[in-house]
């Protein structure tokens, strides 16, 4: 039994109600539906804003970071006044301001094998808005094992990818990328930079795919990978097929439970905030300045690119 819409809701969603593919029943479906957004950064921001605005009745937000000034160039759910606040609290406040009629649950914790099943359990669709491989593989395995769709998006500088990995009906993320790259081969946004509006484009596509799935309309990106290039303004697609030997969704799966992948990935899984260094391996600019001031004997090799040196 779908929930009724209040008078306020009928007014609020009137432009949806006018579309035959959505209509009153579709809007009631959205009100009854739920979406879990992992990451409230570049991708998670537009996803969260559009799903809240569209009237998805129950939204979950997972992040463990705080809002930093360097986030604001692209993470549009957060504002300057929220710098220093927990990202999930900042995002929740903004979403409830946008749409007070929805329920927003905030999970201020890393998404790990220990809590992923419990957090994801009540949600219809999972949206991957993370910035690291360990969580991407965790989300994929979780979605395969629980039969939930994984609405995928990933970005790098001017290029983005999007798809829907729904193992019940098609390939999963591991069918395309069986294993993550080894440490150091793929830089993160914090290292490589990203055009601020790029996650807006890809995140909006993820939100579109989530809404379509929840409404049961249109043809999804399942079985296709969208490749977007902002510099060329090109949208191209390649076909994705299920890998019968996939370790998690193949006919003889090796992976039957969730595991964490912190150890073997290039991008730190639990230390992704701009300005933070990987545990044990990096030092901050301030720490370096102290060392130099103290006269510590250090060998300093400047590997900055010319455009980095210009900053």
């Amino acid at each position: 039994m779908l929930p009724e819409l209040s008078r306020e809701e009928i007014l609020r969603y009137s432009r949806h109600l006018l579309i035959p593919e959505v209509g009153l029943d579709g809007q009631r479906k959205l009100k009854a539906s739920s979406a879990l957004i992992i990451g409230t950064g570049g991708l998670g921001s537009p996803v969260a804003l559009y799903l809240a605005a569209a009237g998805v009745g129950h939204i979950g937000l997972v992040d463990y970071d705080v809002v930093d000034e360097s986030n604001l160039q692209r993470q549009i759910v957060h504002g300057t006044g929220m710098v220093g606040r927990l990202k999930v609290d900042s995002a929740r406040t903004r979403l409830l301001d946008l749409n007070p009629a929805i329920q927003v649950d905030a999970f201020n914790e890393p998404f790990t094998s220990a809590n992923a099943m419990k957090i994801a359990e009540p949600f219809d669709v999972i949206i991957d808005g993370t910035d690291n491989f360990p969580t991407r593989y965790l989300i994929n395995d979780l979605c395969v094992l629980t039969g939930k769709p994984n609405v995928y998006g990933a970005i790098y500088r001017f290029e983005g990818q999007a798809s829907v990995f729904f193992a019940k009906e098609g390939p999963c993320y591991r069918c395309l990328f069986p294993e993550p790259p080894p440490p150091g081969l793929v830089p993160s946004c914090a290292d490589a930079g990203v055009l601020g509006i790029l996650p807006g484009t890809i995140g909006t596509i993820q939100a579109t795919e989530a809404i379509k799935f929840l409404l049961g309309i249109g043809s999804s990106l399942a079985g296709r990978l969208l490749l977007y290039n902002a510099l060329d303004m090109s949208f191209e697609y390649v076909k994705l097929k299920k890998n019968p030997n996939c370790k998690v969704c193949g006919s003889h799966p090796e992976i039957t439970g969730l595991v964490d992948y912190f150890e073997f990935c290039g991008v730190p899984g639990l230390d992704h905030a701009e300005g933070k260094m990987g545990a044990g391996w990096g030092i901050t600019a301030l720490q370096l300045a102290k060392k130099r001031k103290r006269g510590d004997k250090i060998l300093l090799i400047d590997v900055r690119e010319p455009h980095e040196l210009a900053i």
Partner: protein
Amino acid sequence: MPTLKIPTPLRSYTNGQTEVPVSGTTVEQAIQSLMTQFPPLRPHLTNSAGQLRPFVNLFLGEDNIKDLKGLDTPLGPDDILRLVPSVAGG
């Protein structure tokens, strides 16, 4: 000559080139041609046994070469191969 499209994360190894003309009549020969032109790309694309790394995908048109004949997939002179890497940013 077939062309290989290079994604942004790998362009620092191709002197910024977005498309590289390659020689050969199979995907394997095309990849070898690319890596001969740009040796620093080699560890990013293949392992010590010369197999494509699991986080690298090659598409001929819309099709993953894994769904065709793998590295033995024949290439015509006008074919365009596209490298699709793992990307984690969000």
